[in-house]
């Protein structure tokens, strides 16, 4: 048995070595960090052009409206993504801190070439959390998207982050895609990923100065539905209705709004408050088939004209019309992806594989 004195000496030794060895290695003060809110990745001349959107906390949280820009952009080019990101420290006075990254904006060009190589970096690096979203910049570069000064949320990264979440909840045609989902869709056989697309609208003044916020009409970022991928390669955009159809089929609709034009005078607006979908695979005549059942609960949100919904017959008629309309969206979505783009973003392949593994 070791006596108490030895134990005490041992304990002091362990504690003091801990102090020396561990030290304050991991410590970093908040005001020595540059918080990155979004990363934009473009392709310029066979090289990555990475744009970092760095938050300027001084401008964001001060009570008085600031004269400084809420964000600063750092752009650097290079062949390797990690190398580029580290090279940014040569132009940034502070170490870039990636844990609060909100958005990764991909250029269409990059997306077309394949995003697998990019994803690996985001998955491997310890500083990235897994709760940021990926989007594709439609008709513009990622740099332009990050450059734009957006109203309400000064930081365009935050604007996109909040808007994509809000739109998914209240208006179906977008989808939040985090890195885990994206990566797992990439590696699984029967399903292909989708990403939301973002475009710049109402860009009258190309200025990236905060002064444009003095006007009521400023450039805004708009989420315009989804875009479909095959494996890691970008194929094309879906329209808003097609995106909606996609979300209906995959059961991703939480709340959305639609209307029915019954005739020239009468129109009924309805709000989907609950939508569930079930996908089942069958074999019909030796060919695989998929049956999608969508369960909807609707609210009548508004009514124009004299259509009396309180009559049971009319209500039933409405139901069938809504069914038809949603079916149309879904079918359009399936048709577009299967015939034009030739990809399976719904995961039908996976469903069939589960039901009939031998196929």
């Amino acid at each position, binding site marked *: 048995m070791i006596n108490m004195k030895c134990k005490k000496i041992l304990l002091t030794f362990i504690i003091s070595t*801990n*102090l020396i060895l*561990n*030290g*304050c290695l*991991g*410590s*970093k*003060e*908040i*005001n020595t*960090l540059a*918080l990155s809110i979004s990363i934009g990745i473009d392709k310029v001349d066979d090289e990555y052009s990475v744009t970092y959107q760095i*938050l300027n*906390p*001084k401008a*964001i*949280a*001060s009570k008085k409206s600031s004269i400084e820009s809420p964000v600063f952009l750092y752009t650097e080019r290079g062949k390797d993504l990690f190398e580029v990101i580290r090279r940014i420290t040569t132009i940034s006075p502070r170490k870039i*801190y990636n*844990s*609060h990254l*909100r958005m990764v904006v991909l250029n269409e060009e990059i997306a077309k070439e394949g995003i697998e190589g990019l994803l690996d970096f985001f998955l491997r690096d310890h*500083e990235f*959390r897994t709760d940021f979203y990926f989007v594709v910049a439609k008709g513009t570069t990622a740099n332009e998207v990050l450059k734009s000064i957006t109203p309400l949320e000064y930081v365009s990264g*935050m604007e996109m982050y909040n808007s994509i979440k809000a739109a998914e909840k209240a208006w179906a045609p977008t989808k939040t895609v985090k890195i885990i989902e994206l990566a797992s869709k990439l590696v699984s056989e029967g399903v292909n990923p989708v990403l939301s697309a973002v475009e710049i609208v109402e860009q009258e003044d190309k200025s990236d100065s905060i002064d444009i916020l003095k006007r009521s009409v400023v450039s805004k970022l708009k989420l315009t539905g989804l875009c479909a991928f095959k494996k890691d390669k970008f194929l094309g955009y879906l329209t808003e209705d097609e995106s909606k159809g996609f979300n209906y089929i995959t059961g991703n609709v939480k709340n959305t709004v639609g209307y029915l034009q019954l005739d020239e005078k009468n129109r009924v607006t309805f709000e989907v408050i609950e939508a569930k979908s079930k996908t089942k695979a069958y074999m019909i005549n030796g060919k695989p088939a998929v049956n999608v059942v969508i369960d909807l609960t609707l609210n009548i949100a508004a009514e124009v004209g004299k259509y009396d919904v309180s009559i049971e017959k009319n209500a039933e008629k409405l139901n069938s019309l809504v069914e038809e309309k949603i079916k149309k969206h879904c079918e359009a979505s399936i048709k577009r992806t299967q015939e034009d783009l030739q990809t399976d973003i719904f995961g039908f392949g996976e469903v069939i594989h589960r039901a009939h593994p031998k196929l």
Partner: protein
Amino acid sequence: MKAFGNLFKKKTHISNISESENLSRNINKNIEKIKNELGNSSDLSINLCKDNINENLCYVSIYIENIVDKDTINSLSSEITNVLKAKDKLKDCTPEGYFNLFKNALFGFRKSEEGTDFNVLISNLLSGKTLFFIDGYNKFFSIDTFSVEGRAVSEPTSQNVIRGPKECFVENINVNVSLLRNRIKNKSLRVEELSKGNITKTKIVIMYFDKIAKKAIVDELRRRLNSINIDGIFDSSYIEELIKDDRYSIFPQFLSSEKPDSVAAAILEGRVAILVNGTAYVLTAPALFTDFLQSSEDYYYPYLVASAIRIIRYIAFFLTLIVPAGYIALATFHQEMIPTQLLISIAAQREGVPFPAFVEALFMEGTFEILREAGVRMPKVIGPAISIVGALVLGQAAVDAGIISAVIVIIVSITAISSFAIPNYTMSNCIRLMRLALMILSAIFGLYGVFMGLIVLILHLCKLKSVGVPYMAPIATATKNGFKDTILRYPIWDNKYRPIGISNDKSPRVEENNPVTTEQKEEPEFR
């Protein structure tokens, strides 16, 4: 260390009085001796009287002026005059007869004593008794005439309540015993007296309820108290520090209270109260961790309200312990754990602050502790000045000047407010130190350090004992009904049994049956 200890132990205490010595028959010799012993103190009053009738007889009364009650002395002297009027009895009286005459006339209802030992005589004199002895007889008797000016029973100063008894112990131990006796009128309430302090001879009283208190606990406490060997005791905290189970632990292992109602309740639960003369704080033991987060008021409010208040108190306890440490850890090590929006506003406030978060926190905590200490020591007249200096100069101005960030002011404020929610000041003080230790750990190791610190803290708490009872008792060594009076306070009618580890008595202390029956309740108007 040990060698030094032995060195000191071998020295005899100055106050140790020489062996017992009997009174002399010669009155003048005795008086001279007393005078010598007390160094001819100016407040020593010696009245030597020759009897008017029988000139052979002579008596003396001795007392110390400053600690006797003048009224009692006056009534004593008038009684003596009455005694001396009995001429026929005095004519051929021996000194012994004379002594008995006095004794019989004066003893009455008074607390009195007779003896022959000179040392007892001296100690009687010093505790405010008036001594009588007769020339030619080697016995004395003493009558208690002790009285000192003391504070009247008033409202408590450190344990304020809104509802409930507002009496508070005073410095006079007799008053304190009477306050407790008044609350527990039962023959089984035991009051044991001892005197400790080789020089001060401080009176200490232990009180417990015979059938409820565990004999082992009472015996152990008595043994520990008897083993005390110190020159003087001026407060009950001396006792605590001398006899607590783990004398190196920072945590209080005796509960000090200045409220008679909570001490009486503790006695009823089987705890032992230790009263010390000269202090208004009474110790109760065993005192467990949960006791320090309870207030007597908890029992005077409806049980739901009281439980909610207790939960708040526990939350406050944890807040005051870990908020600054948690902030330092998050702000310097784990920024990824702060929600983005919050991080942005913290970052905005930290912008331009020259110190790291730890130094900042240490600065503000230090300032607060200094303010608090100054506030306690400061003359009451200039009290308001400190709040102005504290709130305006140190809070607002330091933030405006960019020396510290506004977040840390909020953090320190939360900590400070929470620390005041702990009802026991001793516990709250000890949390102050714990908090500092955690802050240092978090500055070095981050959350890892904070949790290591907390683990060490919990291990220490589980190891502690108060008079042999595990400190975390109803929680860490779970007892069947113990949880009913810990974080929640169960209704009085439901909390049937006394705490198991502390009390010996297994019988229920309350009958659960509800006097209002269900049938009665269903009647539209019942009474």
